[in-house]
C-alpha cells in the first residue's frame, strides 16, 4: 500500500476523535461566553473551525515524519518494531502513544487493509463537494460581473453614507432586482448588494437603511470570503458532524454580529426587527431550491435584537451523532478482541521463551505467510502436523489472504503442547477443522520457509535415503531453501559415489541462483565431497563468473587435485565467462600445477 494512502487513512481515522474533542471544547467555551458579545463567540467559533482544519494537517505531518508502522510481520517483529518506534523522536506524545497502541494491536493491520477504499471514498466525496461549489461559484461570478454593469439603485446614496460611517474602503454598489427575494451580498473585492425590489417598496426608509447597514457590516467583516473558506473546510472534512456543527455556529454568530452593527448604526431595534420579519414574510412562496425545511434562526435573532431573554435552549453539537462517531472510532480501532490479557500473552511469548531460532516470512500478490519457531521443532514425515517440540519452545504460523488472516500458535511448556487458533486475530476454539487446516497448510509452509531443514533431512534419510531427500528437494519452492537442504545433506556425510553424482547433477539443474549453488558446493567441499567429477560439473554450471571463480580458487588453494581432477578443474575454469576472472584462475592453477594437464579435451567431463 502506498505510504501516502497509509498516512491519509490514519489522518482520517484520527480526526474522528480530534474533531469530537475540538467540538466539545468549542461547545464548552461558547456556553461559557453565552453572555458575552457576539463577536467574541464568533472569534471562538472561527478559531475552532481553523483548529479543526489544522488538526489533520498536524497529524499528517507527525505521521509522515515517523517510520511507518509495520504493515505485516510476525509477533516478535511487531514487538521489535514497537521498540524502534519508541526510541525515535516523537513530537506529540498523545498521538504517538495512540499510534503505538494501535500498531501493537494486530487489528490495526486489518484496519489498514481498508485504507485504500476509505481514502478513495473520501477523495471522491471531497471532489464532489468541491465541484458542486465550483459550479455554484461560476454562476455567482457571472452574476457578479453582470450586476456591476447595472445602474445603481436609488439606495446607492444612503448606502454610501453608511459605508463611510463604517469606514469601508472599497465602493459598494447597490442594485435592485426583481428576481431576488432576500437582500444579498455578492463578491469580495468589488462587492454588490442586491436588493429585492418588491420588498424594498413596502418598507419605510429607516428600516431599509438598517438592512443596508447589516449587509455593509457583512462586507466590512469580509464574511463573503470567510463563507467560501468555510465551504472548503466543509468539503475537506465532510464526514465528521463536528465540522458542520461548528460551521453553522460560525454562521449564526456572524448574523448576530452584523445585527449588532445594524442596530448600532441605526438605533431602532423594533424597526429593524420588524424589517427582518417583513422581509421573511415577503419571500416568494415558489420554492426555488426546495426550501421546504423550516426552523430557522429568525426567532432567536429577533429575540436577541429585542433584548429579550432567550429560551434556555443550548445549541450543542448533535450529541448523539458525535458520541456515535467516537464510539465508532473506539470500536474500529479498539475492538472487542483487544483484551489486555492477549497483549500480555503476546509479549510473554516472546520475552520469556527462548530466542527465535527460526523466522521466515514472505509477501506476494495473493497474500503472505510467516513461520516462526523457538526451540527445536520436528514435523511428521508427511508434514501434516508437528511431531515434537522442545519444552519451552513454540511454533507460530501465520497466513494472510486478501481479507482474512489466520494464526496458529503452538506452545510446549511443562511437557504439554498447547495449540491456539486465531482467525482475524479473534481466538477460535481448536477443532478438527483447525487441525485439518494446519495439515493442509503445513506442507507448503515448511517447504516454502525451509524450517527445520536439518531435522527433515535426517528424517528423510532414515525413511527414504538420499533419493528420498532428493525427491523432497524437487518439491521445494526457492533456491535458498533448496540450497539449505543440500547443505544439510552434504553435512551428514552419508552419500556414496553414485548418490553424490545424482546430487550434484540435481543441484546443478534445480538451483539457478549462482550464490546458492556455490553455497551448496562449498558445503560439499567442506564435507570432502569435492573429489568427484560431478562436483566440478556442478561448479561449471554456476553462471556468475565471480561465484564460480571464487569457489574454484578456494578449492585450488585448499585441496590437492589428482591429475584427473585437474582436468576437470581446468574444464570447469574454462567455462568462466569473464575473461579476466578466467585468466586469474588459470594463472593460479598453472602456478600450482605447472605440469601442463590443463590442456585436456573439453569433453572429458560429461
Amino acid at each position, binding site marked *: 500500500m502506498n505510504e501516502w494512502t497509509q498516512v491519509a487513512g490514519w489522518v482520517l481515522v484520527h480526526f474522528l476523535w480530534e474533531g469530537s474533542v475540538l467540538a466539545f471544547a468549542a461547545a464548552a467555551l461558547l456556553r461559557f461566553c453565552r453572555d458575552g458579545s457576539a463577536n467574541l463567540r464568533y472569534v471562538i467559533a472561527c478559531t475552532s473551525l481553523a483548529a479543526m482544519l489544522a488538526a489533520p494537517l498536524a497529524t499528517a505531518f507527525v505521521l509522515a515524519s515517523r517510520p511507518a508502522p509495520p504493515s505485516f510481520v510476525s509477533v516478535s517483529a511487531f514487538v521489535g518494531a514497537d521498540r524502534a518506534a519508541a526510541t525515535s523522536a516523537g513530537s506529540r506524545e498523545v498521538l504517538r502513544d495512540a499510534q503505538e497502541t494501535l500498531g501493537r494491536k494486530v487489528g490495526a493491520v486489518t484496519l489498514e487493509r481498508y485504507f485504500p477504499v476509505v481514502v478513495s471514498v473520501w477523495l471522491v466525496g471531497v471532489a464532489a463537494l468541491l465541484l458542486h461549489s465550483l459550479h455554484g461559484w461560476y454562476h455567482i461570478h457571472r*452574476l457578479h460581473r453582470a450586476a456591476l454593469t447595472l445602474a445603481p439603485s436609488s439606495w446607492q446614496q444612503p448606502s454610501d453614507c453608511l459605508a463611510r460611517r463604517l469606514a469601508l474602503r472599497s465602493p459598494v454598489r447597490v442594485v435592485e432586482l426583481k428576481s431576488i427575494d432576500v437582500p*444579498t451580498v455578492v463578491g469580495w473585492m468589488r462587492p454588490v448588494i442586491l436588493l429585492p425590489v418588491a420588498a424594498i417598496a413596502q418598507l419605510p426608509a429607516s428600516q431599509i437603511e438598517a438592512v443596508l447597514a447589516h449587509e455593509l457590516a457583512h462586507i466590512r467583516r469580509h464574511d463573503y470570503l470567510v463563507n467560501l473558506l468555510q465551504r472548503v473546510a466543509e468539503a475537506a472534512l465532510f464526514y465528521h458532524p463536528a465540522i458542520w456543527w461548528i460551521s453553522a455556529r460560525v454562521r449564526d454568530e456572524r*448574523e448576530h454580529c452584523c445585527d449588532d452593527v445594524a442596530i448600532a448604526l441605526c438605533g431602532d431595534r423594533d424597526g429593524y426587527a420588524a424589517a427582518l420579519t417583513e422581509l421573511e414574510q415577503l419571500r416568494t412562496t415558489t420554492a426555488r*431550491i426546495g426550501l421546504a425545511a*423550516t426552523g430557522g434562526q429568525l426567532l432567536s435573532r429577533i429575540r436577541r435584537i429585542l433584548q429579550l431573554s432567550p429560551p434556555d435552549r443550548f445549541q450543542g453539537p448533535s450529541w448523539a451523532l458525535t458520541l456515535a462517531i467516537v464510539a465508532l472510532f473506539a470500536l474500529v480501532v479498539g475492538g472487542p478482541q483487544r483484551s489486555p490479557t492477549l497483549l500480555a500473552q503476546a509479549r510473554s511469548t516472546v520475552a520469556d521463551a527462548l530466542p527465535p531460532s527460526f523466522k521466515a516470512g514472505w509477501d506476494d500478490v495473493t497474500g503472505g505467510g510467516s513461520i516462526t519457531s523457538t526451540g527445536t521443532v520436528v514435523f511428521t514425515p508427511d508434514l501434516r502436523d508437528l511431531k515434537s517440540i522442545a519444552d519451552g519452545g513454540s511454533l507460530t504460523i501465520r497466513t494472510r489472504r486478501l481479507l482474512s488472516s489466520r494464526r496458529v500458535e503452538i506452545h510446549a511448556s511443562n511437557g504439554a503442547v498447547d495449540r491456539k487458533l486465531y482467525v482475524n486475530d479473534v481466538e477460535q476454539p481448536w477443532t478438527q477443522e483447525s487441525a485439518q487446516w494446519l495439515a493442509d497448510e503445513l506442507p507448503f509452509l515448511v517447504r516454502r520457509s525451509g524450517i527445520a531443514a536439518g531435522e527433515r533431512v535426517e528424517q528423510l534419510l532414515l525413511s527414504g535415503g538420499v533419493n528420498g531427500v532428493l525427491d523432497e528437494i524437487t518439491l521445494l519452492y526457492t533456491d535458498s531453501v533448496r540450497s539449505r537442504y543440500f547443505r544439510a545433506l552434504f553435512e551428514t556425510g552419508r552419500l556414496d559415489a553414485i548418490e553424490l553424482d545424482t546430487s550434484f547433477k540435481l543441484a546443478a539443474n534445480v538451483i539457478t541462483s549462482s550464490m546458492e549453488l556455490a553455497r551448496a558446493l562449498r558445503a560439499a567441499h567442506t564435507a570432502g565431497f569435492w573429489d568427484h567429477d560431478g562436483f566440478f560439473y556442478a561448479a561449471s554450471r554456476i553462471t556468475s563468473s565471480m561465484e564460480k571463480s571464487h569457489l574454484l580458487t578456494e578449492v585450488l588453494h585448499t585441496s590437492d587435485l589428482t591429475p584427473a581432477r585437474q582436468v576437470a578443474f581446468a574444464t570447469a575454469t574454462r567455462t568462466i565467462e569473464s575473461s579476466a576472472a578466467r585468466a586469474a584462475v588459470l594463472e593460479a592453477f598453472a602456478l600450482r600445477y605447472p605440469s601442463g594437464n590443463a590442456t585436456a579435451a573439453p569433453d572429458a567431463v560429461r
Partner: protein
Amino acid sequence: MARPPLSRPTDGELAILRILWIRGPATVREIHEAMVPARPSGYTTTLKMVQIMTEKGLITREEWGRVHRYSAAAAEEETQRQLVEDLVERAFGGSALKLMVQALATKRASPEEIGEIRRLLEKGKGESR
C-alpha cells in the same frame, strides 16, 4: 415605447445589440461593417441574425423607402437588467446559494415562528409606548 416580451439574447445577438445601442438605428449593411472587425462573417449571416432577432422581438424595423433601418427594441439598461435577473434565477438554483451571504437564513421560518415573532413585536411596541 412598446415593450415586446424580451427573450434572452445570445452572445452573437448581444454583439449586434451593442452596436445598435452605440450607433442608434442602422441598416444591415452598417451593422455588418461594424461587426466585421470583431466577428468576421458573411453578410448573409448577419442578415439572417437580424431577421431572427426581429422575429424574437429584440429589434424593431423601420422602413425608410427601400432602406430598412433596425433599432434595439429595449434600452441597454433594460436588457442588461433582464440578463442579470436571468442569472439570478440560475444562480439560485443550486449550490450558489450556499456561497452567498444573505440577510436571512436559507431555511425559512415556519408560520408558527412568524406568529410568535409578531407577538413579540407587538409586545415590544406596546411596552415602548
